């Protein structure tokens, strides 16, 4: 189960995630992000409600990072809970993700 909420403001877009990001739900997030990326140069992923992410979810986040980089934009990730943070650190994605 994953709920996403998207808010687009002048220069940035915020996508809030709630629930679990796994093999089944990460395609949903990928779709949302694909729609948002062309509209902004600063994308913020708010992970406050995200309980868990699998490697499939990490793939989507990594992919987002790459696509934002490709268009000279920036991806920021905020409100990361300890469980998810551990995964970011384990995979060493933490340093490149602009975690706030």
């Amino acid at each position, binding site marked *: 189960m994953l709920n996403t909420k998207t808010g687009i403001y002048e220069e940035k877009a915020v996508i809030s995630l709630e629930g679990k990001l796994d*093999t089944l739900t990460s395609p949903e997030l990928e779709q949302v992000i694909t729609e948002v990326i062309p509209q902004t140069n600063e994308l913020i992923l708010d992970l406050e409600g995200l309980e868990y992410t699998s*490697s*499939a979810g990490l*793939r989507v986040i*990594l*992919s987002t990072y*790459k696509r934002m980089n490709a268009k000279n934009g920036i991806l920021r990730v905020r409100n990361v809970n300890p469980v998810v943070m551990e995964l970011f650190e384990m*995979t*060493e994605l933490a340093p490149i993700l602009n975690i706030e």
Partner: protein
Amino acid sequence: MEENRQKIGLIQQISVLFILGIFLTGIITYGTEYYVTERNVKAQVENLASQTAREVTLAVREYPAYEWLLRYWYENADTLDIEYDAEYWRNAITKEKCRVFSEKHPDLQLDYLMEEEIRALSDEDQKLYAEIAYSWFITRINQIKRANKIDFLFCVVVRDPYDRQFFLFSAADEGAKRGTDYEEVYTIGTTVTVSETQQEAMKQAVLKDAHLGDAGKYFDYYAYMGTLKDDYLLLGMTYNISDIRSTVDQNTLKEVSYAVFHQIFLSLLWLIAIYLFVIKPLKDIQKSIRFYIETKDTETTVKDLTRIRSRNELGQLANDVKDMTIEMSDYTNEIKNITAEQERIGTELSVATRIQVAMLPHVFPPFPNRHEIDIYASMDPAKEVGGDFYDFFFVDEDHLCIIMADVSGKGVPAALFMMASKIILQSVAMLGRSVSEVLALTNEAICSNNQEDMFVTVWIGMLEVSTGKLVCSNAGHEYPTIKDADGDFRIYKDKHGLVIGALDGMKYTEYELQLEPGAKIFVYTDGVPEATNADGEMFGMERTIDALNEVKEKDPESVLKNIRRRVDEFTAGAEQFDDLTMLCLEYKGKGE
């Protein structure tokens, strides 16, 4: 298939309704007919009776001195010598009386005597006149009775409480016997007691001028004619209506049978119409549906349904059923194709899984001649092909490369990516580069063609078998666990690099461990700590370490089997979504 629930035909159900309708029609017709006729008969009798009463009244009033006459008859009933029911062409008594009277009073007109003239007569002549007038009067009312077909016509004098009737005069049919007995036609002065019904009827007549009483076969009618002295004068009539009644009954019966017959005829007509227009097409549709259920023969069913010619709702129903049959057949074919396709994919996936498993070293012990090491590994895909893999191979005589890796995602994409990763890692490692270089070069290779942004976490170790020196590098993979020769298993928090495939140009650091004989290293994928039970609780690293230490002195195969056993106990049959991949190496050293 549901059993046939048709227990009764539509035509029978409708017939039952029609039969009820016929009964109802019969009853209603009978009731209405009877009620109307009854009222008509009563009205007729009442009408006839009141006319007769008027006629009798007029007959009385033809005598100018009728008041005197009535009173005289009433007062002298027992002394009058009356000739009843006289037939003047045969009987001469009254004629003789007339002749005597006319001789005595040639100046008087016998049939038009005024009261003053009568009063002037002698008592004897008064009596004579009264007798003559009475006799004439009886003959007159006999005629009225006959003309009006009245069963009894009489005049009585009554007084409150109406318990007795004083017969002043009564009409008789030709040849009837006169007297004072029951069944005789009463003579003047006969007094009878009467029933309570009669009393009530007379009372009503006095109050309302007339009263018609219904006594079944008879109608009794009383008309009030005025007072006589202090008493009431009532004209009574009785009509025998049994003849009328039976005629009425016959007519009613005829009416009822006609209505019922009419209804039956109509019902039959309706039934035939319903059968032709409703039941028959319906049966045909039903037959086609049943035929389709049993044979699944779309072509014949459609042909049969097309033959139903109704242009009404049933025709539409037949059309709809036809369309449904065609769609059902199409749908069934589609499902068949999809199922076949799914079966094909399923077969291919299981072949893919077998190929994947076969790609990994799976013969144990893998190096029967190398006594310095013992190694055991296993991979159990959770569902189908997965993205986990392990690998180990000798790079040269003295260097054993061990790999534990986990590809992001699952299924066929993960499996394909895993194959590529495994081959690249092994190819690069075989070049004899250091482990950090192996990761960096693999990362370059994968990043160069990674459209899908997939990545793989890799832990790689290079064991120098002769010395026990283990050089490792970690690209975003789970921490390894190490057991020193005399110690317990523990998590070794090594320095991580970025997952492989994320960004190109990454550098990886490496670290060195010195394994003494008896030391073990256990590496795994996240499927182990993240194995989840029915409550959503994860197996976790603590339980993993505990399970390792339970069998820390045993050989790698036993270690892995114990972990597997503990994880299975913990998850207790809850469905697992992640692969379970583990590898354990024991360094035995040269000496053994």
